[in-house]
């Protein structure tokens, strides 16, 4: 069963659609800026994030909807609207029941959670708004996507921190392969640049307050991001039957658990996930041209991921282009893999590898070709997208340039 991508939508620190995201990553734009949405920002050590710029929710949703939609749900709906319009799909008749919505989110409605905790614990409010619970549940985003488009097939949310949308895409592929559905809206959303969450990230000491320099010797951590990506997956047969535009093919996926440490990544888990993806996609290591790395820019991830890539690809590792687009759009956590899939699809379409920006100095422990600071035209037939989450849960997807 061949699975193809027929629609994409993006909301990110680089803009409000797929075009601005793709143009951004090839131009080496930075989505990092002073945090706007936290009134108490002065009390934070980390004051920079990859926020969705100048976001005004009232431009996209009416009052009644806003009472129901947390910021992460809003982002998911915006990217889903773009993807559905892009795919030219209408979920009528049997298709409504033969379509699935599988979305990832690391946390869910964190803004709602924090606002309301503040209300009762700090402001000593006697009561909370009645829609607090339905607004903060992690499946709210997926649920509202089903409601907005009338999608009635199996739908749910997957949480695996930074790999949430990668696991979601893998799960969607499984449902397509088994014949349970013909179409899946998948991807994820995250919006947790909130006072409490940033404080939590600060305490972990993995977030940079300057910029994100993946694989560079002077890297100082990740930059927290937010946003959403929606990827529409479809069986090739279904896509062909309706004459859909096809962006790329999903060849396979691999997943693994480190069974190690809740925060320290293990190369072994990453190796097994990449090997599983190659096996599932029936690929040899030499078939891969480009890897969109997890590449968080933390001291821990980058050498560990580099070692894992060396272990899987042996001598072919030196021929790979490996880049981290998180150096531009930040780490969008539960939305990361969906956004990075869009980067991979554009690389396959354009035959250009996106760069790793802010790269200044080679690190002996990170000795691959990271496409530093400048996009590179090259042959890209097959690419991997790596996601290695906190909790040691890994997911890798393999994509191929589409040819009939």
């Amino acid at each position, binding site marked *: 069963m061949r699975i193809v991508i027929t629609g994409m939508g993006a909301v990110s620190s680089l803009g409000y659609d797929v075009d601005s995201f793709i143009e951004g990553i090839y131009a080496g734009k930075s989505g990092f800026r002073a945090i706007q949405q936290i009134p108490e920002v002065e009390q934070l050590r980390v004051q920079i994030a990859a926020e969705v710029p100048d976001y005004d929710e009232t431009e996209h949703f009416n009052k009644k909807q806003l009472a129901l939609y947390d910021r992460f749900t809003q982002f998911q709906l915006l990217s889903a609207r773009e993807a559905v319009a892009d795919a030219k799909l209408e979920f009528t008749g049997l298709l409504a029941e033969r379509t699935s919505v599988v979305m990832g989110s690391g946390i869910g409605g964190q803004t709602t959670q924090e606002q309301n905790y503040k209300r009762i614990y700090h402001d000593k409010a006697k009561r909370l*708004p*009645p*829609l607090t619970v339905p607004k903060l549940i992690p499946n709210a985003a997926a649920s509202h996507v089903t409601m907005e488009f009338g999608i009635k097939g199996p739908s749910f949310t997957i949480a695996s921190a930074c790999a949430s949308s990668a696991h979601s895409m893998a799960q969607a592929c499984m449902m397509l392969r088994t014949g349970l559905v013909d179409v899946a809206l998948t991807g994820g959303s995250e919006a947790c640049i909130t006072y409490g969450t940033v404080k939590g990230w600060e305490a972990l000491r993995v977030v940079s307050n300057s910029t994100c320099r993946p694989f560079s010797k002077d890297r100082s951590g990740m930059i927290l991001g937010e946003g959403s990506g929606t990827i529409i997956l479809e069986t090739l047969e279904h896509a062909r039957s309706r004459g859909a535009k096809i962006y790329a093919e999903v060849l396979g996926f691999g997943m693994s658990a480190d069974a190690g440490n809740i925060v320290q990544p293990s190369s072994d888990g990453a190796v097994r996930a990449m090997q599983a993806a190659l096996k599932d996609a029936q690929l040899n290591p030499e078939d891969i041209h480009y890897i969109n790395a997890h590449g968080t820019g933390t001291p821990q991830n980058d050498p560990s991921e580099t070692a894992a890539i060396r272990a899987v690809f042996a001598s072919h590792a030196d021929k790979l282009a490996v880049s981290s687009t998180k150096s531009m759009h930040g780490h969008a956590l539960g939305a990361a893999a969906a956004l990075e899939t869009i980067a991979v699809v554009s690389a396959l379409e354009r035959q250009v590898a996106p760069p790793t920006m802010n790269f200044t100095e080679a690190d002996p422990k990170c000795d691959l070709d990271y496409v530093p600071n400048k996009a590179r035209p090259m042959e890209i037939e097959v690419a991997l997208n790596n996601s290695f989450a906190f909790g040691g849960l890994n997911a890798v997807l393999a994509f191929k340039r589409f040819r009939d």
Partner: protein
Amino acid sequence: MSEQQITPQEVIIGILRNYIGEDIDAEKVTLEANLEDLGIDSMDVVEIIFDLEETFDIDVPNPGDVEGGNIKFNTAQDVINIVKTLIDQK
């Protein structure tokens, strides 16, 4: 007109108007009008109760918790009666 001069009844009608269906004329919100006919569903009622509690600093009990009596939210007049009773009980 300053806020003191607005009666509780007017405030309540104002709250109800925030929840009526998009295609419903605000003038249709009269004392006798059935809330359901105004496009106000059960979830809207829950939100209306929250607004009433916040506005009048009252606690509206759950219908099942009120001995012998049923709290009805069928019409605007029902809502006004309940709020008035709860204000008097304060």
